[in-house]
């Protein structure tokens, strides 16, 4: 985590980043190959789609977490914020009976608002991101239970709602490819966020803040405002994750969410984004999220005993990242 160390390797890493990014697939591809050989059930369209769908929620959450982590922060609230946004959608759609579009909007706005609050704690009040988002994690967890009356809110009154994640636009165009909308949304969010990170001023400041916040401030930039903006964007992406999971479950499950932040952050770090900030890619995060879900699915398909699944998952996560480190060193 010491940012100062190994400047040389960083420079080399980013110099060859094109090649490296392609190679980062390697761990993932090896995993897929191994599972395909081990079980004929793995490489079926339906299973591939199940894996992608299992990735969709964690993938979107991980993208949200990536933004904050690149600024050098951490976000522990992504999981419960997702749930909170799902509950808000439930309130708007089921309790108040509003049209679908408003529910979608409400979830995203709720996410952005919560992100703005976390960002304000961090930027203005100088509360360490770990504490600010830990607090928000608990606050949102409690509020979800309070608002929902501690029971799931079902979306049966809004028939279109399940389509958000479970319908298949692609399937209706290309009949043989019933990729659920949830997966489509994951990729759209990834592309949009990647674009923001690489091409817009907000993205530039995201990296700059994580690289050396003091230098940015000394350049006369209002760092607080930009930091809050990053947290707000991250929050609104959590709102999308909330819609995805609610649509997938056709319900807002108010108790779900805590613990999901760990999977999300794990995907980010496996994907090569540095927890000390300044460096990271969305494509890496996507690959990280896929590694996690391929592992989970594959081990289940192989009927590995559940206690051993955990052991193997832990080992492979370490191994995958180590492989990645070795490859980068060799480049």
């Amino acid at each position, binding site marked *: 985590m010491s*940012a100062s160390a190994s*400047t040389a390797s*960083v420079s080399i890493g980013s*110099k060859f980043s094109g090649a490296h990014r392609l190679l980062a697939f390697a761990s993932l591809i090896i995993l897929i190959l191994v599972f395909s050989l081990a079980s004929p059930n793995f490489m079926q369209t339906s299973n591939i789609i199940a894996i992608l769908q299992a990735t969709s929620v964690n993938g979107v959450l991980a993208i949200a977490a990536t933004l904050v982590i690149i600024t050098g922060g951490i976000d522990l609230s992504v999981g419960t914020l997702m749930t909170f946004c799902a509950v808000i959608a439930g309130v708007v759609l089921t309790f108040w009976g509003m049209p679908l579009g408003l529910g979608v909007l409400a979830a995203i706005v709720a996410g952005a608002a919560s992100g703005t609050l976390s960002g304000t704690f961090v930027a203005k009040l100088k509360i360490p991101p770990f504490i600010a988002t830990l607090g928000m994690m608990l606050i949102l967890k409690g509020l979800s239970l309070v608002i929902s009356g501690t029971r799931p809110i079902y979306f049966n009154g809004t028939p279109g709602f399940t389509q958000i994640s479970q319908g298949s636009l692609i399937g209706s165009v290309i009949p043989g490819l019933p990729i659920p909308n949830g997966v489509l949304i994951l990729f759209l969010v990834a592309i949009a966020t990647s674009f923001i990170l690489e091409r817009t001023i907000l993205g*530039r400041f995201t990296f700059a803040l*994580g690289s050396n916040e003091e230098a*940015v401030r000394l350049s*006369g930039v209002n760092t607080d405002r930009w930091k809050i903006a990053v947290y707000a964007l991250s929050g609104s992406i959590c709102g999308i994750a909330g819609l995805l999971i609610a649509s997938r479950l056709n319900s807002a499950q108010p108790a779900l969410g805590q613990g999901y932040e760990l999977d999300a952050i794990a995907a980010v770090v496996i994907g090569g984004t540095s927890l000390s900030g300044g460096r990271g890619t969305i494509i890496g995060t996507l690959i990280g999220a896929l590694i996690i879900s391929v592992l989970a699915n594959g081990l289940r398909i192989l009927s590995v005993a559940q206690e051993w699944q955990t052991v193997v998952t832990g080992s492979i996560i370490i191994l995958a990242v180590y492989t990645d480190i070795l490859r980068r060193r060799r480049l």
Partner: protein
Amino acid sequence: MTALVIMKDIGKSFPGVRALHNAQLELRSGEVHALMGENGAGKSTLMKILAGIYRRDAGEILLDGKPVEINSPRQAQDLGIGIIHQELNLMPHLTAAQNIFIGREPRKAAGLLLDEARLNANAAEIFASMHLKLDPRTPVGGLTIARQQMVEIAKALSYRSRVLIMDEPTAALNDAEIAELFAIIDRLKAEGVGIVYISHKMDELKRIADRVTVMRDSEYIGTVPAAETPVDKIISMMVGRALTEEHPDIPDHATSEVVLEVKHLNRGTVIRDVSLSVRKGEILGFAGLMGAGRTEVARAIFGADRRDSGDIYMHGKKVDIRIPQDAVRAGIGYLSEDRKHFGLATGMDVRNNVVLASLARFTGPGGLLREAAMHDVAARYIDQLAIKTPSDRQEVRLLSGGNQQKIVIAKWLLRDCEVLIFDEPTRGIDVGAKNEIYKLLNALAKQGRAIIVISSELPEVLRLSHRIAVMCEGRLTGILPGGATQEEIMHLATLRGDTANHNKQSKPAKGEAK
């Protein structure tokens, strides 16, 4: 002619430290105003107040004769005040161009998107005007500090300020780059920009300064015209007494024992077949242009980087150096050129940084540390090197740049190695202290240490060295005797490609023969 900037009776205190007291500065447009003073005199602090980074406790700032409040870097920029910081303030993960224009990126698509092409073009334009060959798309974290410094300069230039503060801009630069910078300064002067120039290199005064303001112990001493005032006078204003310079004679080491010998060192393209040796009591100077590979050689000897091939001998016995610990055990110490990243644990206090390489010596049974003994040595070095600090418990990052450098030196003096490699040891150190360090190096040599001094200041190399090794593009192009001239060194330092191989055969022979 009304002054561009007047700073009147400025006062500033930090907890436990009075950094400024009744400080004065008057800057005219179109002049280069040198700000001189010993390490910790308050130069950087005064300039940080002008640049809106610190708030002053007392005093007044007038811009064009009107009082102004400068409360943030942004306000300073808006008032046309730009600054090149003494310590680098870059975002290592961003490219050179991105660093230069942070917060002022050219946009396209109605301001929504970044115009990366124009960004790079603009940066390239500035680099061209500085005659700097640097790809604007290189991440700055991978650049040497000299190049990072050039990026900082480019950034300051890009603001087109009316007032430009340069806090030791040449500390990390070599002569060619310094000449380039001075050409830029001349152009800016002609455009009417007022420049505050802080440096510890006295020779630069005569070359560019119009007037000189001297500070000592956080106070204003006086302002004098640069051309008419003798350097000795300025120095005595700075240190409060006259300095005597002594050129020690070069002892004959022909019969002394060879302590360190390096044979056929290679590392990628940055070190190509370097062989050299240092004898007991000898100071070997290491000269070369930026990127010549001197630092790389030192790091490779020290085990900080892996080497592809090459053997290292101490007292004729081969030693296996893989990590710095091996080197230190074998009796080799290395003082890095980049103190912030590689030299200091800046969050820790002076005492602990001084003992960092010798902690085992202060460890009693059960791993217990002997704090009292640590305090004693820290106090001794604070005294010996005149380190300006309220106590040995002050965090190092709160010290002025020069005083930080002295702490790194103290760390290696305490470690007491047989071979000491000093990489740019006087970077950012004031004249008085520089003299002290020269004396110290000579004394160490007299005690029988073998010393390698890497320096980009030729006068320093010439003054200190008993022999001078010169590098160019990773090759050792020759070894000159102590009395060599600047021209001889520059000749070897620019010997490129195949011609170098040829010269290498003959020149070292000449060096060794002396």
